[in-house]
């Protein structure tokens, strides 16, 4: 395994006469309140190359690119374009420096035509007619030149996602972008569409355009890029020549040698099947299939980890199992009995003993303006524990919350404090307390320690394992590989909505899982 080079250093020695790099980022630093998103980041991108940036979710890739595109201003650091130091305070300035960006969430106006979208901000005068003709011609040229054909009069909202992305690229090119930043461009594409995109990017490269390609899919890095930089926890940790690195090396750099939290975990004694999923198909809000024919079983007394890069269907799987998201196909069996459609909702599932710790406690799991004791009964608020008559028994609610906070060491132990005023870790403990204390036989757990401090992580992990030891069936979804390793007895890996592999925890390692996560199917490998 080749040792990664220090960030920002170039392994290829530059000749004195060669053109300066297209982009140099030097010492970029950016914080959002307590979140340190970019820590002294250095990056050097040569002209005419495809430069990949990989990293796990929240590693700071998007923030870095937003700084480059003038969406945010860095707290410290310098940007150089073609060797010239520049200040980029707005997207307008970024555009004028020849930077174009294709955002993960398209910046398109769906009811407008392709032409209008491309023209927006580059109209070429107060009246549209002249500019429109010029841009129409330019679109035709670009279409021929790069194979980027698209009907200029089509309504963008009616185009396929792949074509919408093409419009985004055309927008940048029409503005004369020499440097194109693509933020997770394949997240929403089908494999065929992705291949088309890669073709386009290669043509662009051949025209001496510089491309920055952000992803967390190693397969794409390997097949497309010339160079690749790895980010982890806000830092730029390594840069490689793609030809001289390998997926395992990249996975290693991405995941890092984190202190794996050791949990004293006895051997699992899986019992009978508590939950079974057969050929599950689930679509997201935009009607895109996100879970595509997933089947697995979950036994009592085991933790089944679902590993995968974020956005590969884990969220939708979890929501579908919890009854929040409808199933497009397939079935769920609880204790061997199919779950009737009438019971496929959160309320009914709680009644039959399925607990759910949602991935996003802010948006889903808690109600921030509520008192902690009120958040601590969400989903169970109908129960008679909280009052038998018409009215709630306030004391019972507070006592119940106090009990939960005690059991899960939620601090401060103040049931009347607003939920929002607790730290992330304590909020998460509150959610876990709520779900675990109700003693469900099946637990669906999503990202249990996201944004949680070290101390709380350990506590939470212990409680999860304790549940397993009590004979519960737990499904754990996490994008943190070390968490998957620390907790799971068995691991399935999701990529592109399909299971790409299943492992016993003791039979695998980060490299192995990294490959599966990157979609390198074990059968193909």
């Amino acid at each position, binding site marked *: 395994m080749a040792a990664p080079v220090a960030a920002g250093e170039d392994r290829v020695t530059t000749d004195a006469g060669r053109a300066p790099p297209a982009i140099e980022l030097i010492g970029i630093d950016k914080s959002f309140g307590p979140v340190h998103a970019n820590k002294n980041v250095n990056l050097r991108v040569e002209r005419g190359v495809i430069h990949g940036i990989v990293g796990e979710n929240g590693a700071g890739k998007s923030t870095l690119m937003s700084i480059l595109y003038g*969406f945010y201003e860095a707290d410290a650091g310098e940007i150089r374009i073609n060797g010239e130091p520049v200040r980029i305070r707005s997207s307008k300035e970024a555009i004028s420096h020849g930077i174009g960006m294709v955002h993960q969430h398209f910046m398109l*106006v769906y009811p407008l035509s392709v032409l*209008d979208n491309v023209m*927006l*901000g580059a109209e070429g005068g107060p*009246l549209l007619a002249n500019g429109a003709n010029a841009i129409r011609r330019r679109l035709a040229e670009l279409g021929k030149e790069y194979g980027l054909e698209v009907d200029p009069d089509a309504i963008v909202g009616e185009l396929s996602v792949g074509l919408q992305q093409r419009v985004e690229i055309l927008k940048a090119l029409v503005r004369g972008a020499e440097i194109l930043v693509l933020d997770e461009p394949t997240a929403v594409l089908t494999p065929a569409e992705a291949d088309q995109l890669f073709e386009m990017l290669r043509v662009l490269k051949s025209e001496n355009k510089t491309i920055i390609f952000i992803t967390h899919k190693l397969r794409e890095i390997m097949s497309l890029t010339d160079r690749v930089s790895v980010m982890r926890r806000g830092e730029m940790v390594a840069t490689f020549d793609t030809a001289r690195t390998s997926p395992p090396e990249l996975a290693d750099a991405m995941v890092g040698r984190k202190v794996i939290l050791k949990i004293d975990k006895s051997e699992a004694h899986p019992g009978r099947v508590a939950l079974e999923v057969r050929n599950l198909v689930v679509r997201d809000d935009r009607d895109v299939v996100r879970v595509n024919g997933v089947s697995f079983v979950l036994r009592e007394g085991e933790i089944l980890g679902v590993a995968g890069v974020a956005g590969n269907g884990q969220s939708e799987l979890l929501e579908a199992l919890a009854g929040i998201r409808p199933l497009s196909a397939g079935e769920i069996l609880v204790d061997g009995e199919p779950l009737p459609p009438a019971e496929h909702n959160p309320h009914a599932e709680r009644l039959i003993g399925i607990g759910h710790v949602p991935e996003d406690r802010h948006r889903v799991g808690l109600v921030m303006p509520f008192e902690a004791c009120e958040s601590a009964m969400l989903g169970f608020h109908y129960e008679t524990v909280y009052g038998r008559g018409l009215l709630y028994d306030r004391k019972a609610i507070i006592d119940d919350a106090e009990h939960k906070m005690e059991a899960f060491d939620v601090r401060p132990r103040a049931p009347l404090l607003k939920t929002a005023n607790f730290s992330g870790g304590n909020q998460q403990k509150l959610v876990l307390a709520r779900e675990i204390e109700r003693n469900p036989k099946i637990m669906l757990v999503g990202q249990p320690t996201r944004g949680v401090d070290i101390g709380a992580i350990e506590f939470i992990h212990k409680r999860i394992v304790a549940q397993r030891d009590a004979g519960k069936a737990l499904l754990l979804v996490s994008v943190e590989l070390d968490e998957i390793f620390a907790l799971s007895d068995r691991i399935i890996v999701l990529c592109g909505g399909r299971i790409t592999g299943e492992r016993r925890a003791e039979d695998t390692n980060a490299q192995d899982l990294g490959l599966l996560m990157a979609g390198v199917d074990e059968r193909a490998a």
Partner: protein
Amino acid sequence: MELFDTFIQIFGSGIRLGVPLILACLAGLWSERSGVVDIGLEGKMLTGAFAGAAFATFTGSAWIGLLAGVTATVVASLIHGYASIDQRANQIVSGTAINMVADGLTALIGNAIWSQGGRTPQLSDTALFNAITLPFAESFGAVPIVGSIYRHLISGHDIVTYAAFALVPLTYWALYSTRFGLRLRAVGENPAAVDTAGISVRGLRYSAVIICGVLVGLSGVYLSLAQAAFFQPHMSAGKGFIALAALVFAKWRPWPALATCLLFGFLDALATRLQGVELPAIGAIPVQAIQSLPYILTVVLLAGFIGKAIPPRASGIPYVKER
């Protein structure tokens, strides 16, 4: 022939009653196309009507009245704009506030100045926008049908009415053929797209809010200086809300807005004419039924029973840069 004449007359009346709706509806169109929901049209209309009448009374000039009316509504619009754009307020609450303040303040000041229960004195002819008879209206008017249409429908309106009709193609042109229009349409749908294209969302929205103020000001001035000859409290009588309904009904597009406003004006004229009239085979139609038709139609449309009115996607939502 008599039926035709009656129709022409009711249609003429519908045009006059439709003009304030057209102007207010276009005002709402500009604002909401930019993403700022405006339920304060009613209040702004009153503001414009009052300021227009007040200054026309002081100066005896309709044009100064117009200027004052428009200035006042632009100020009201900017208050709503400040709340909606900079303070990221609930735009419904802000619009409601504008309606209330305008309703009270116009009557209060009017009463304080003229002690006539909030009314301004009857304005003299010079302080009004009077009907303009187009050339040959009388002579050509004798020609059947075409002449009648020319004389009764096309000729004989005031300058604000002609302006209102001219503003529809102008709005259409500005919205669909200019850079500003393109950007405006975009910002009401997806402000982030506009922002990343290097265009100021705030600047666009403030421009739209000012245009809204000018147009709704014209609408108010029309009420007091063309349709009536004075200001009287609450004289907008729900026209701002009808304009809002028309805007929904027209699905935020200029030409359908014109058609809808004319339809609503026509319904109003019809309701007035049918007061106590027994129709053959139907009997007397309650005028209230016709009067509430615009509201009922709008609700039906909103509920998606006849097509679906989808507002500009970002309307009502303050723009916050997201990480």
